[in-house]
């Protein structure tokens, strides 16, 4: 041991020792850390753009540093637009509906799947219901278009016209869209959620049900007093995690399915699509960054709150 080694502060030596003993583990972590650094941590420094009048200058860091500080001006500008309220409202309301439907329908279906006498059929239904989950939102937007297209769409041509009514211009009539968007969200994710809950129900010990049946419990009673209580932890955790992400909308659904139609923005625009268009159309980088940061911060608070509650219920189920 030489003098320089000894002069190093203790925590640093401890760290060095830790690295040396775990060198193999550190090497395994490195590629992932590299991706996290570039994809997630460097962009976090970019949040300062929200407080600046952004001007591009030479490169990424120089532009951020040399752009002028303007405090909360970008936020002021964003919150003064009528869209600020609209997109926030849309994001939260849609997510609330999706959370409720994403629990109620799949749990009922999962219980029903479990009761079917023919297990092969049950398996078959699950396979079909699960399929929409594997299709991209672009494909879903094609499916929606084949139903809703003004000239050729199935609903206009084969149902509405056949009844002798005027075609509906679906892509410019906002009032239908809360239902259309909800339908496709439910269509895409119900099977997925049902399969998850079904797997959880299959894990319940069949002795509970046998004992209950011997005591004369009906199917309804068994569901109410065995299945639901035993599913409850999974339901609560899944719901709370979804509530934590209530500020983050599914960009694919809200951008692709309405085909980014301007006439529908009042009911289809969510924070994510708003930020995207602010960045693309008006080139108002500062405001886009401000609205993005607003989403990130509020979203972070909701996740922490949800996680805090999950932790209270069951430590092991918490995200962190």
């Amino acid at each position, binding site marked *: 041991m030489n003098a320089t080694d000894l002069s190093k502060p203790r925590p640093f030596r401890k760290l060095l020792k830790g690295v040396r003993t*775990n060198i193999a*583990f*550190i090497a*395994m*972590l490195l*590629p*992932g*850390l590299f*991706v*996290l650094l*570039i*994809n*997630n941590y*460097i*962009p976090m420094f970019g*949040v300062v753009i*929200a407080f600046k009048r952004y001007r591009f200058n030479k*490169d990424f860091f120089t532009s951020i540093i040399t752009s002028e500080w303007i405090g909360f001006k970008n936020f002021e500008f964003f919150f003064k637009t009528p869209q600020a309220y609209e997109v926030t409202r849309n994001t939260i309301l849609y997510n609330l509906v999706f959370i409720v439907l994403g629990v109620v329908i799949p749990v009922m279906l999962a219980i029903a799947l479990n009761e*079917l*006498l023919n297990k092969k*059929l049950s398996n078959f*239904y699950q*396979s*079909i*219901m699960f*399929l929409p989950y*594997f*299709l*991209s*939102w*672009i*494909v879903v*937007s*094609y*499916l929606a278009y*084949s*139903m809703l297209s003004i000239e*050729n*769409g*199935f609903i206009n*041509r084969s149902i509405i016209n056949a009844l002798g009514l005027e075609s509906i211009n679906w892509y410019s009539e906002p009032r239908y869209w809360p239902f259309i968007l909800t339908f496709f969200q439910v*269509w895409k994710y119900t099977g997925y959620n049902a*399969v*998850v809950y079904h797997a959880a129900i299959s894990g319940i010990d069949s002795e509970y049900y*046998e004992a209950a*049946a*011997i005591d*004369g419990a009906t199917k309804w009673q068994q569901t109410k007093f065995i299945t639901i209580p035993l599913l409850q932890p*999974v339901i609560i955790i899944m719901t709370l995690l979804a509530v934590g992400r209530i500020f983050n909308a599914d960009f694919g659904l809200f951008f*692709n399915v309405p085909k980014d139609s301007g006439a529908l923005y009042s009911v289809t625009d969510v924070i994510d699509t708003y*930020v995207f268009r602010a960045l693309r159309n008006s080139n108002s*980088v500062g405001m*886009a*960054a401000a609205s*993005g*940061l607003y989403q*990130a911060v509020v979203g972070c608070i909701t996740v922490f709150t949800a996680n805090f509650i999950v932790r209270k219920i069951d430590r092991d*189920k918490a*995200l*962190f």
Partner: protein
Amino acid sequence: MMSKILKKQGKLNQISATGNILLNVLFIVITIVCMAPVLLVLSISFSSEEAIRHGGYSFIPQELSLKAYDYVLKAGDAIWRAYGVSIFVTVVGTFLSLAIICMYAYPLSRSSFKAKGFFSFLAYFTMIFGGGLVPWIMVYTRLFKISNSIWILIFPYLMNAWFVMIMRTFYKTSVPESIIESARIDGAGEFRTFLVIVLPLSKAGLATIGLFCTLVYWNDWYLPLMFVTERKFFNIQYLMYQTLVSIQYLTSGSAQFSEAAVVLANLPTESARMAIAIISIGPIVLAYPFFRKYFVKGLTIGAVKG
């Protein structure tokens, strides 16, 4: 007495025959709702343009035609290129991200690794907070300047904190610590233990995460939407997006587009577009049996340790 009750409950606590029929009817309806839109697109892709103009989109082709697929096969250079981009990105992306995720998750599963909490948090934190869309885009376009390249379609999805968590749980449940310990006693290094003992025991986990990654890459349209403007880097999903946008743009166009509209009129545009959608779903349908098997496994673990 007991046997009487059991009899009333049905054999082995089963629902009644009527109940079973009702449930089956319910599920048949749901099955139809799930499949109908897909079948509609399939039917359109096999319809002739004439029939579509005449009767609109319908579930049974009024006049069967393979023109759309013929067009896609012969004239669809852009389509095949985009298909190639999708295949390349999916294969390379899945391989790389699987390797990175598996390596990142392994130390986090080892109780002897003291810093696992810190590195877990580094990954999880990205699920909680991000810099937002604007700086994220700038990092790739201004700092690393890899927009309009094949790598922008791969790099951003290489790490996924959620998959890391699932993989870590897989290691913990399928690889007993005692086996790792005995390998250490026999003098195997951490890398050797990982490659020779841990990975072969985690095959189901690898398959699950691999399929998750495949799906992420194959179905991606977000990255090209954000970063790609050059046609040669369009993947199949983004090409579909462009086709839906631009054919609509041409047909709704005013007189100045009439020339283009005439050219388009000769192409089986309506059915060709749907044919591309069907072709893009193809690989997923083929891989579907694997997807189902391993997805459920992964989802159960993911839901159990959320």
